[in-house]
Structure formats: structure tokens, C-alpha cells
């Protein structure tokens, strides 16, 4: 049997064959999202199992979807690639820690020594430890230890003005102030010295 590559019908068959393979791959992925046998059995036991009508409906829907993918598979591949990229970006965004400090709240760069000199706490009864940041001296030391003084790491003083909301779900209200670790313009850590 010889193949006529100059014939457009041959190319149509090739196009549809690739489409069929794509549809089968999509079908395979859809099977992964099916409820497990345990869940299906539970639903049956609760009287929520699939009826014959539901099965027929599924067959109809899958058949139409397979035919549509066979014909328009290039579009589906582009859509799948874009969706995967979008999901990946969202995952990365969700994994990123959220800080109270946002770029618009950064005030000025300071050195650790300047920060310590500006934060000696005096209280009416004279009970606070005579160390920078008072009772927060320990957490400050931990923040500095994790800071990493490589080139490009900057220490910034920040202020969230009264009336502003910030943090995850905007759950913190100003006034808030503290120090932020900024690396190449991106906030990578923070030490809050005042908040509510």
C-alpha cells in the first residue's frame, strides 16, 4: 500500500490522527480527576450513585469533547500550555511569604548600628532591659543572624501609616513600623517593632 503525500486527504488523516491522540491524552488526564472507587461506592450507598441517564450523558459529553479536540487540537494544546503556566505561577505566588511591609512603606536604608541606636526603649517605671529594642532584643538578634550581609542585601526602616491596612487579607492596621530585609528591590524578611 502506498501513501500519497501529495494528496490533501492523507494530510487530513494525519491531522485527525494527531487530534485523536491528543483527545486520548486529555481523556487520560480527566480519568485522574475521577472520584476514587471508595467515594463512588459511598455515593452509591447514599443513593447518590450515577443512574443510566447519567452514564449516557457522560458518554455523549465525552464523545462530543473528543470530536471537538480531534478537530481543534492545536488550539487545545495552546490552551493547556497556558493553563499549566498560569497554575504554576499561582502556585509560586501562594508559596511566597506575605509580609506586613510592602514596597510603598519603605522609608530609608539604615545600618544595623543606626537601627540599634534609634531603638533604646525608655518606660515610665524604668523596667525595660537596657538593650536595643528592649524586650525585642532577642528577636532582633535572630533577625540579624538570618539577615545575611551579602552584597545587595539592604536593611530598610519601614512605616505603615495609621489608617492603612496590610498583610495577608489586609488583617493588620497601621501604625506599624519595623525593619525590612530587601534583596535586589524585593522584600525578603521583616522585623516589626511596633504594631497592634
Amino acid at each position, binding site marked *: 500500500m502506498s501513501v500519497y503525500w501529495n494528496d490533501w486527504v492523507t494530510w487530513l488523516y494525519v491531522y485527525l490522527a494527531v487530534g485523536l491522540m491528543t483527545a486520548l491524552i486529555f481523556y487520560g488526564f480527566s480519568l485522574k480527576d475521577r472520584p476514587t472507587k471508595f467515594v463512588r461506592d459511598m455515593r452509591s450507598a447514599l443513593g447518590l450513585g450515577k443512574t443510566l441517564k447519567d452514564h449516557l450523558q457522560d458518554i455523549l459529553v465525552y464523545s462530543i469533547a473528543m470530536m471537538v479536540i480531534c478537530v481543534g487540537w492545536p488550539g487545545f494544546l495552546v490552551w493547556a500550555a497556558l493553563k499549566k503556566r498560569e497554575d504554576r505561577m499561582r502556585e509560586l505566588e501562594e508559596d511566597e511569604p506575605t509580609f506586613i511591609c510592602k514596597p510603598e512603606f519603605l522609608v530609608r536604608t539604615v545600618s544595623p548600628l543606626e537601627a540599634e541606636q534609634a531603638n533604646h*526603649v525608655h*518606660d*515610665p*517605671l524604668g*523596667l*525595660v532591659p537596657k538593650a536595643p529594642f*528592649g*524586650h*525585642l532584643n*532577642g*528577636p532582633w538578634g*535572630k533577625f540579624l543572624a538570618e539577615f545575611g550581609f551579602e552584597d545587595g542585601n539592604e536593611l530598610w526602616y519601614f512605616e505603615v501609616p495609621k489608617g492603612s491596612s496590610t498583610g495577608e487579607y489586609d488583617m493588620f*492596621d497601621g*501604625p*506599624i*513600623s519595623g525593619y525590612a530585609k530587601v534583596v535586589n528591590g524585593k522584600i525578603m524578611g521583616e*522585623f*516589626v*517593632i*511596633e*504594631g*497592634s
Partner: protein
Amino acid sequence: MTAQVSETLIYHGKELMMFSNPLDPYLRAAGLHFESMNTANWRGYEGTWEIKGSEATGEGLYLVALEANRSFDEIVGLAELFPGFPDGVFAHWFSGEIRLPQGDLLEYVHGGYASQYEYDLFLEIKKGLLVSKRAVHNKARS
């Protein structure tokens, strides 16, 4: 959400309910958290605070007692969290308003500190120091 058990503030010798949590910023900065024992206390601790000082020295907010659940069977107090400060811990990490509800309960709300009382006394605190106060007369929401 269940209504939350309040903190306590001693102000001019009176023990008042306090619908604010001034210890929270310290706990966040120190990376500490306590275990909740019941739904009426999600923060896992109850603190007693006092406004101490005088007009001459200024008045400040001090934590004077604490009962906190480090775990389900370990309760810690002020001495464990702030060793060496039995007379009080100055809340220099806190800036904001604290709310002290007073008078009759006008409306019970089963969530957070949302219940409404006859009066609210608000104390404005700046880095632990009392800077101003104001009172609000509430009316029952119809």
C-alpha cells in the same frame, strides 16, 4: 466564630475587660504561639495588663500577669515568657487603640470581640505609652 474571652486591664485600680490583644505583636515578632484550649480563646492565653506610671513620668501599658498554654498540658506564666520582670513588662511593641467596654451589655454577638456594651473607653497607646483617651456612648443596634 465564638465570642472570645477578653484580656483584663487594671486602670485606676479597677479591673476592666479589654477587647484588644496587645501581646500579639510581640508574639509575632518573637515567633511564638500558644495552643488554643477551647473555641472561646483562639489565642491560647489570657493576660492581665495595667496602666502604670504618673503624669510626671508618663503612663505606660504593662503586662502584669499571664496564663498561656504552651501545649495541652503545659501552662506558662509571665516568669517563663519574660524571666526577670516580675513587676511588669512594658508593652513598647504596641501602638494602637485598646477598647475597654463598660456598662450594660446591649447586644451579645457570638464572634470575636463584637459584643456591644453601653460605653467603650478607648485608650490610644503609642509604643506602650498612653497618649490619649476617649469614650463612646453606644446605642443598641435595632
